[in-house]
């Protein structure tokens, strides 16, 4: 009796499981745009109830690895794939991988100085000096000259950086490498670095928590994170000489001033443009050029078109900067490259 009912449940379960017409895709990668992707995939599912897109934010490195292995249908990364990684993808999967920028992010310097509530101004040299450990006190002449109206204490600067590998670190170090040869040779740019000085915090939360707890400290976090947590952050001087505070407008301005290559792999740190914020970056979806399953290929191209249209309108509510129009137009043309094995 029991055996028969168990068998019955098993058979019914097997019949019920495949829901007819259900298409499901999986993606993995960057943590920074997770909030945005989460909303997008959810809204897209509401529009197309038979399509389910699952996204796991395991980190950009993981996203690149998994899409190369083919365990996920698409990847996501805060930093573009390197030439070696592209070659590896081509060798493993037999086709190219395409980069599609989705939103813009920025990295801002946060600080905690007792008694200082004003926005501090930083030049690239000041930031490099602090993070290399050369500028050790808040009342260093470099900093006092930049902020004459602020009373900076004579205490030691406590530097806080990321202990985990992250796209935020990549963007920050990419900017510092561009503005300083010493940083470029001594430290370089990567998701994880050999930091000359400083304490490590895990995640944006770790860095901001450490900065909040340590008086006279400075760190860096994503703009989205700082905005959502209402943190005060400093202004950075851009290549035109203006001190710009990161905002959705100044971030979009940074992207607009850059010549976008055909493969969309570009760094937009330290761009030209009077209102541009200098420490910004795109974040990309990594889509294989050739997708075996015809249905999945159709879903991906349709989603990309939706993302570039109605999707872009949803970004500002979540404190992400939308893509500039020129980039959107260029991407819409590039979607045609995605095809299925005929």
């Amino acid at each position, binding site marked *: 009796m029991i055996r028969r009912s168990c068998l019955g449940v098993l058979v019914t379960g097997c019949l019920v499981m495949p829901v007819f017409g259900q298409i499901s895709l999986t993606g993995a990668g960057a943590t920074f745009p997770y909030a945005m992707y989460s909303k997008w995939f959810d809204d897209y599912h509401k529009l197309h109830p038979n399509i389910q897109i699952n996204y796991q934010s395991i980190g*950009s*490195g993981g996203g690149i690895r998994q899409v190369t292995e083919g365990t996920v249908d698409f990847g996501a990364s805060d930093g573009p794939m390197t030439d070696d990684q592209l070659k590896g993808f081509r060798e493993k999967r037999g086709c190219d991988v395409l980069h599609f920028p989705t939103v813009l992010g920025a990295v801002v310097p946060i600080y905690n100085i007792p008694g200082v509530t004003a926005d501090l101004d930083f030049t690239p040299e000041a930031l490099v000096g602090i993070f290399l450990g050369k500028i050790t006190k808040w009342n260093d002449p470099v900093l006092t000259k930049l902020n004459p109206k602020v009373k900076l204490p004579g205490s030691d600067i406590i530097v806080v950086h990321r*202990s985990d*590998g992250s796209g935020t670190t990549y963007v920050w170090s990419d900017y510092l490498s561009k503005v300083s040869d010493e940083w470029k040779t001594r430290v370089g740019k990567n998701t*994880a*670095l*050999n930091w000359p000085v400083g304490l490590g915090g*895990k995640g944006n939360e770790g860095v901001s*928590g450490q900065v909040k707890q340590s008086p006279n400290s400075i760190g860096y976090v994503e703009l989205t994170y700082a905005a959502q947590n209402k943190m005060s952050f400093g202004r950075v001087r851009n290549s035109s000489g203006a001190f710009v505070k990161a905002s959705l407008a100044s971030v979009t301005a940074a992207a607009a001033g850059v010549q976008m290559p055909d493969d969309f792999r570009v760094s937009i740190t330290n761009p030209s443009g009077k209102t541009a914020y200098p420490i910004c970056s795109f974040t990309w979806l990594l889509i294989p050029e050739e997708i075996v399953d015809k249905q999945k290929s159709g879903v991906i191209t349709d989603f990309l078109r939706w993302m570039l249209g109605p999707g872009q309108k949803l970004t500002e509510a979540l404190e992400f900067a939308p893509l500039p129009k020129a980039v959107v137009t260029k991407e819409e043309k590039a979607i045609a490259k995605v095809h299925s094995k005929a």
Partner: protein
Amino acid sequence: MSTAPSVLPRPRASQFAAKLRAGDQLAYTLTLICAASIFLVTCLLVYQLWAGSVLSRQKFGWNFIFSSTWDPVKEDYGGVPFMFGTVVTSLVSLLISVPIGLGAAIFLSEMALPGISDALTFLIELLAAVPSVIYGLLGIFLLVPVLESVVVPALKSVLGFLPIFAGPFYGVSLLSASVVLSIMIVPFIISVSREVLLAVPVDQREAALSLGATRWETTWQVVVPYASRGIYGSIFLALARALGETMAVTMVVGNTSKVQTSLLAPGNSIASVIANQFNEATSDMYISALIELGLVLFAITIIINGLARLMILTTGARIAK
């Protein structure tokens, strides 16, 4: 057993079948599979660690355990800062937790009333079940401020001349990690030591008391030495946990990949760096270096366990004499 009278001896096949039916052979086979599976998993683990770290081992060789540079950009990896942090935080946490744990275990087994002893033991064993992330949070929000405002200033005023207490204190440090670890491993020491102390035969205690020893002399000079092997076992169990502890350590250790002599300076540990950097490790060499760190931790654990066994054996031999 068959009750029918048999004239001829039963053939082997049906003897085996009979044993099988009786369950003995089955039980033997099943339990053998269970034991073998654990051994198999361990072998697979070591093989995976060995195979996964081949790139890094080939490039750095023995230099890996002598180099203190950890540079993912230049792909130059060395394990010294992490080995240092792991060993230092574990040893200091033992230094803090062993006296407290042993003292508590002695109190609970020898001095306390049975009702109080059982209640307190239950609470202490609950502590062992708390997830390590909670300890990490406790460390950041409760422990670090206390250390910063009360403990470290006092320590510095008295022992500040020692190099291990030199330098500024930022809250997150090897000392904070050691203190959090000691809170985590104390329940292990207490519960196992208490069991072992309770298991000491009453005759031993009575013999000592009858010779005129005080309560404390009995405990310290008779009961504890008798139970010493079990106590060492509990200490090494606690040490094993401390060596591998990841989340609680990574939240309070400071994540600075440098070797510094002061306990008040931030540091890093093997488990902490693997947990932090494995996800975003993009290049094969990077992943291989992290896996090699895992292999190094495995080796450290085996060495320490080996020493523990040796110590227990020699202590046992001495007591037997």
